[in-house]
């Protein structure tokens, strides 16, 4: 029983991380119909910039949590600027191109960011100092770390905040309008360019948060940490319903739990024929299964109809 609870906790943590990253993907997709392959790299840069800040601030005698917050702040600012620039330089000129052109551009941006990060921070893995409170607590016989609790809370708060923003605020209304029909929104006085830029900026800030939390959770930051994470997060967004904020979180958490439970129990379920090495396969099969029955994802999609 405690193993099961532990696996659930593992899954929830992993899932919350996916959810945080998926939110960024889903926002951009909702408004632009673009798979921003570079999003994972922004997460990575957030982690590495924060790490650099931590190292700089380590000399000061500030309390660790404060260092963590300042580091996150700096990382968030860098990422927001980065997200804004990427949108401005790489995606905006291709606003009306068929979707393959921005996709290839996104791949290009992802490659460039990875290589630049490698040139700047080197190829080796970097240890991340434990700044966040990391006491372990017992719950139903399983262990949960305070960092893990923070991650889950962060995902929940981000989701709530975003939903509030999108559903209840004027900015949110403008975002929904632009997502639904940019031309008519423009007629209503909404500056589509500004809204899109803002979407990227918010998404990038979330990416920075995800980056800091991921590196805190695993204690490692590395120039290649973003790609796979981004891919999984995008899978999660699709699972939940692309463009749908609640869907991104649901998809993320679900994917995390599926992976954890899959790794934990596939072996037992299949009598040892398939083991934890098939955990990714398992996750993808679930995705395909869901999409066959609900082609728009679990919670349905919210994308502009590109007639």
């Amino acid at each position, binding site marked *: 029983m405690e193993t099961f609870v532990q696996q659930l906790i593992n899954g929830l943590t*992993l899932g919350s991380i996916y959810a945080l990253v998926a939110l960024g993907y889903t926002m951009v997709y909702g408004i632009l119909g673009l798979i921003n392959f570079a999003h994972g790299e922004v997460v990575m840069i957030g982690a590495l910039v924060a790490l650099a800040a931590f190292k700089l601030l380590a000399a000061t005698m500030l309390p660790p949590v404060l260092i963590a917050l300042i580091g996150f702040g700096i990382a968030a600012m860098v990422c927001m600027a980065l997200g804004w620039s990427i949108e401005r330089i790489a995606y905006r000129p291709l606003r009306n191109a068929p979707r393959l052109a921005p996709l290839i551009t996104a791949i290009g941006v992802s490659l460039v960011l990875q290589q630049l990060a490698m040139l700047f921070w080197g190829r080796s893995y970097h240890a991340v100092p434990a700044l966040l409170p990391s006491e372990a607590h017992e719950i139903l016989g399983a262990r949960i770390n305070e960092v893990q609790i923070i991650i889950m809370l962060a995902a929940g708060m981000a989701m709530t905040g975003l939903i509030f923003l999108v559903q209840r605020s004027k900015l949110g209304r403008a975002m929904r309008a632009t997502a639904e029909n940019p031309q008519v929104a423009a007629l209503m006085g909404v500056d589509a360019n500004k809204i899109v830029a803002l979407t990227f900026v918010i998404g990038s800030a979330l990416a920075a948060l995800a980056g800091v939390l991921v590196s805190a959770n695993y204690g490692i930051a590395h120039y290649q940490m973003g790609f796979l994470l981004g891919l999984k997060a995008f899978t999660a967004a699709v699972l939940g319903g692309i463009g749908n904020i609640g869907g991104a979180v649901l998809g993320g958490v679900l994917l995390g739990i599926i992976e954890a439970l899959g790794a934990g129990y596939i072996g037992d379920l299949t009598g040892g024929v398939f083991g934890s090495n098939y955990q990714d396969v398992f996750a993808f099969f679930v995705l395909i299964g869901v999409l066959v029955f609900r082609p728009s994802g679990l919670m349905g999609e919210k994308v502009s109809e590109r007639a």
Partner: protein
Amino acid sequence: MKTQTLVLSLSAALALLACSKSEPPAPAAAGAPVAQAPLIVKIGHAAPLTGPQAHIGKDTEYGAQLAVDDVNAANIQVGGRTLQLQLIGEDDQADPKQGTIVAQKFVDDKVNVVIGHMNSGTTLPASVTYANAGIPQVSASATNPEYTKHGYKTAFRVMTNDEAQGKVLGEFAAGKLAAKTIAVIDDKTQYGEGIAIEFKKAASASGAKVVAEEHTDDKAVDFAAILTKIKATKPDLIFFGGMDPQAAPLSMQMKKLGIKSILLMGDGGCTADFIKNAGAAAEGQYCSKPGVPVEKMPGGPAFIAKYKAKYNAPIQLYAPYAYDAVMVVVEAIKRAGNADSAAILAELPKTAYKGVTTDIAFDEKGDIKDAAVTLYIAKGGQWEQVDTIGGKPAAPAAASAEPIPAATPSPAAIPAAK
């Protein structure tokens, strides 16, 4: 007409190229015994000279170059002619595809012998090319057992292979570490899986019980799920077949989950980076490395001095083995009396050479006989030597502070989900 001129120019170009076919200048062997031309031996050397393992690849090349220089300075006579070695160094980028291209190049350039490649992943496919061309290949570093299992007469290595390493690890776990129950994790790469399988065999044969077997891949950072599964089986020891970028988070997560088992790894985790990244979680874990630390080698201290004098850099990993590989070839040439590939091939199996690293002799598959493996424990932020199995008996345990990075038989492409 345009097409006509085009056809004419094409044929002209073709004719020109045909006429200017360049051949490597053959050494003019004069008849008179006095002014005999030197016997030039072309030695190909392949290793990653660019990319993440460039520093290790370059180090291997330096070792070979050192041997070449020593031999050339020694004015060795073979069949009345002075032996002159030429090292042709190529970059295979640790990429199997690039490795076969480099192998092709060597065959085209008609090298007499190849030292290399560095990674198992490149050595194996390249060995096919060399076997087809009859060019002997001596690897100073490839540890994958498959290399010598295909029956290629041309495949040799002067380094312990993973089978030997896994066996030593398994016996060590069941023996010295007295582990009764063992869990095995591997990263499903050629290296990780290979060494894990050998470890399992040896540990089971030595009386331990393997209670859990888990797999991951070489890109994962989250091991919570499989560690949770393993925790339920309460093993005394967990063996990880994989590299240090994952060994570090693995050990940290073990600690977080409250798993008390010892962690044992192969040479993939036996690096300074592991200790740096795992921090407190590294303390008390064990690992192994093929061969012996340089200082403990029979010719070690002298080699370190020579290397430092010439290159003014610390030895990374394989330089002494590359040195010995070249020397073994030279010995074969001396015995054969000539430097043809076929002659070298015939003499290599009869090698009995006291090298820098150890006494070298090959078994019938091309592996080195009586290979050595050294075991380490992480203490106080460094790897400390615990024991050496096989090879020449080494001096008792002393702090081995050298930050020797591990050899990664990993592909070179970057954002691939491999």
